[in-house]
């Protein structure tokens, strides 16, 4: 055994304490979120059957514009639009924004839906790449296609917001599938608190493995691909635990770009989606918080678990890695752009809890955890740290992780029971344990890569290959 100088031991202990304290803080945040999510789930509004919901809300449901930006989506676009047009909602318009696709996305839309060039008077408050043309058909009055020069997702959404006339707009990914009554469920808070509701997010679930027919999820099943399975547990944790809890605390900082409902006027007032960032969905929510707080107006930004949007998860390490690095970059861009809100009393709980949460979970968490993976075992191996430090580190990175993942599954099973078979629960429980050994570390590595991309100012989304939903 090497006899280390006391200062070396002190440095090692300090490093270990920083790693352990940060991990503990992160775990503490998750435990608090679990508690809030539990309370929120138990007090959520009833899941009325569709007919009852329609009878109660349809007469007063405000019009909604569904904005579906599409870039090279020729494989999925027709099925997605067909599914959107079949939604169960009294007054809505589907606005597909072809963002300068280099494939046949526009041609597919023209051929399948018979849309033709039209003129429409639209708002030009938000800046975006030029619109080449608008397409509609009297046969399908609910469909409008915008063809524009390529400018990215934010740019496409801004064009959609300008052209939309409904007081609410719903941003969705063109390759996602909404449950038929998702809009009616999502609009409920806007009807019940019309003066306060600003934005709302719904649950995103992964359709990998499920049976899909005619743009609808017919039966829920688990995928065979391990990466997709892990992502199911991750999405449960993100939506059922984190967003539900943050919403309960009124500090929700993200509404997924795949399914979010916004008050159009307020989004125009904050300048729409920011360009030159990959975290445009998060940034929009932060801008709305800032705007409402600056105006000192009471408001609500909510997440509710019932309206569900189904999406396709990447089943390939390279694509998943790119996606996670991009998400991390998006969080960092938003955090640093609005860093003046951090712990700023002017922004109340959003400054303290919302930004504090991003600081712990997205900014410091991955960095320090990866530092821990390298240093704590090394320092223990060379005799600078006692075994207690190693065990504490293992506790915060592995066993507490197992606890949080399994506890989320417990919430899902106790309150929602959306996985139809007991065998699904067995598989997910095993995955919830296994993901902490290998996948979690890989995920942190991807996030670190996102950190690096942020520091080196890398732009763009990277390539995301669409394969389309598997049909039944």
């Amino acid at each position, binding site marked *: 055994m090497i006899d280390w100088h006391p200062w070396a031991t002190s440095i090692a202990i300090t490093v270990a304490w920083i790693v*352990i304290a940060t991990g*503990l803080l992160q775990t503490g945040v998750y435990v608090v979120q679990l508690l809030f999510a539990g309370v929120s789930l*138990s*007090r*959520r*509004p*009833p*899941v*009325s*059957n569709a*007919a*009852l919901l329609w*009878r*109660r*809300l349809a*007469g*007063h449901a405000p019009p909604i514009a569904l904005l579906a930006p599409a870039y090279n989506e020729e494989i999925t676009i027709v099925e997605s639009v067909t599914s959107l047009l079949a939604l169960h909602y009294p007054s809505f318009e589907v606005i597909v924004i072809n963002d300068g696709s280099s494939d046949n996305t526009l041609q597919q839309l023209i051929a399948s839906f018979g849309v033709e060039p*039209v*003129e*429409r*008077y*639209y*708002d*030009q*408050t938000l800046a975006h790449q030029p619109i080449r043309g608008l397409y509609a058909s009297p046969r399908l009055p609910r469909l409008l296609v915008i063809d524009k020069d390529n400018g990215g997702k934010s740019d496409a959404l801004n064009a959609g917001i300008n052209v939309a*006339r409904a007081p609410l707009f719903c941003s969705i990914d063109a390759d996602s599938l909404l449950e038929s009554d998702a809009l009616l469920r999502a609009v409920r808070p806007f*009807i*019940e*608190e*019309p*003066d*306060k509701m600003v934005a709302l997010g719904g649950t995103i679930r992964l359709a990998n493995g499920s049976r899909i027919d005619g743009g609808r999820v017919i039966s829920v099943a688990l995928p065979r691909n391990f990466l997709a399975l892990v992502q199911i547990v991750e999405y449960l944790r993100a939506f059922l635990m984190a967003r539900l809890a943050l919403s309960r605390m009124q500090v929700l900082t993200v509404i997924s770009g795949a399914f979010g409902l916004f008050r159009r006027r307020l989004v125009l007032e904050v300048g729409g989606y920011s360009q030159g960032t990959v975290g445009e969905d998060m940034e929009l929510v932060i801008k709305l918080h800032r705007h409402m707080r600056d105006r000192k107006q009471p408001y609500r930004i909510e997440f509710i678990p019932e309206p569900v949007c189904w999406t396709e998860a990447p089943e390939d390490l390279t694509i998943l890695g790119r996606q996670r690095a991009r998400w991390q970059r998006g969080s960092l861009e938003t955090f640093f752009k609005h860093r003046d809100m951090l712990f700023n009393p002017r922004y109340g709980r959003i400054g303290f809890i919302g930004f504090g949460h991003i600081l712990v979970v997205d900014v410091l968490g991955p960095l320090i955890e990866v530092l821990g993976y390298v240093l704590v075992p090394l320092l223990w191996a060379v005799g600078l740290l*006692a075994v*207690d*430090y190693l*065990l*504490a580190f*293992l*506790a*915060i990175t592995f*066993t*507490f992780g*197992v*606890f949080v993942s*399994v*506890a989320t*599954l*417990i919430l899902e*099973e*106790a309150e929602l029971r959306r996985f139809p*078979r*007991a065998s699904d*629960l*067995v598989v997910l*429980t095993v995955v919830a*344990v296994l993901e902490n050994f290998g996948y979690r570390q890989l995920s942190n590595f991807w996030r670190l890569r996102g950190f690096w991309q942020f520091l080196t100012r890398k732009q763009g989304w990277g390539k995301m290959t669409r394969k389309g939903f598997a049909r039944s």
Partner: protein
Amino acid sequence: MGLYSLWAVSIGLAGVALLIMCGLIVVRLLTQRRDDALAAGRRSLLPLLLGDASDETVLAAVRTGSPILSDLAIELIELVRGEERDRLVATATRLGVTDHLRRTLARAPVRARMVAAETLARFPDPATTDALEAALEDKSADVRLAAALSLASSDRAPEARRLIDLLGLGTGEQSMLIVALFQEISRTRPGEIRALIDDPACPPPVKAAAIEALAASGDYSLVPSIVELALAADPADEELPRYLRALGAFQHPAAAPAIVRWLGAPTWWVRSAAAEAAGRVGLIETAYTLLGLLDDPDWWVRFRAGEALVRLGEPGRRLLSECSSCGTERARSAARLTLAEQAVRG
């Protein structure tokens, strides 16, 4: 707490979570068979409820007041109309569905109480009315509103002023469903809702909801009252656009003083609502003001002004056509595209 305890606590928590999860999986396995049986029972119950089966036959399949019977009966009642619905309501009542719902409304958690309150709208018997009236004092605002809507939809609502107090309408309760509530009440007791508009003690959001509820009634005697409210309002009032839209819905020229005044409002949302109302009422004297609004800084005002000019008929279209060639760039664009969109070439 030492570092080792951290390890011990984490192992303990993970172990407990896994144990609970295992327990839930076992429960799921045990209940899966019961759920399958319930689904099968539901399938066999469906033809019995839809057909002419006797109560005894139905009760041989499920016990009285069973949740499965209740759920299915409610779903079917929502799906059918007319005599078929009346028959199903009578059958469900005899089979104890209303008893089950009333018990739920009195004792279950909030979510179930709310569904029960919504569902009981279809059951007009006196015991249900009593249960719904009791639910008007429920501690949950959502349940109170659901009960009020149910009572109103079957012409059993208490007096509107009492509802305002019980539900905190316009003060605590701001839901857009207040309009639905007033619309239901006004079907049989329009005078009661009408009185709210003239009542100075009534909160402005309640007045606005009452006006919206009565806007489709065609009772032109309301127009002077709404005009008076609109003229007395502040341009920043959130209710003012609602008054103006209601005046537009009445399409009565007596609305002119309020509409003309607020076409020049400092707030865009009021100008926009006034422009829309001017078009609906067909106030030809506002044509040049509307033409000026085609150059308004706010898009909604320009859009509504263009729309209103089209509604004014030939004179409005002519002005749009002229503006499309000689106005400011903003007004030209608004005029040209409005005409193109309305497929009326100037």
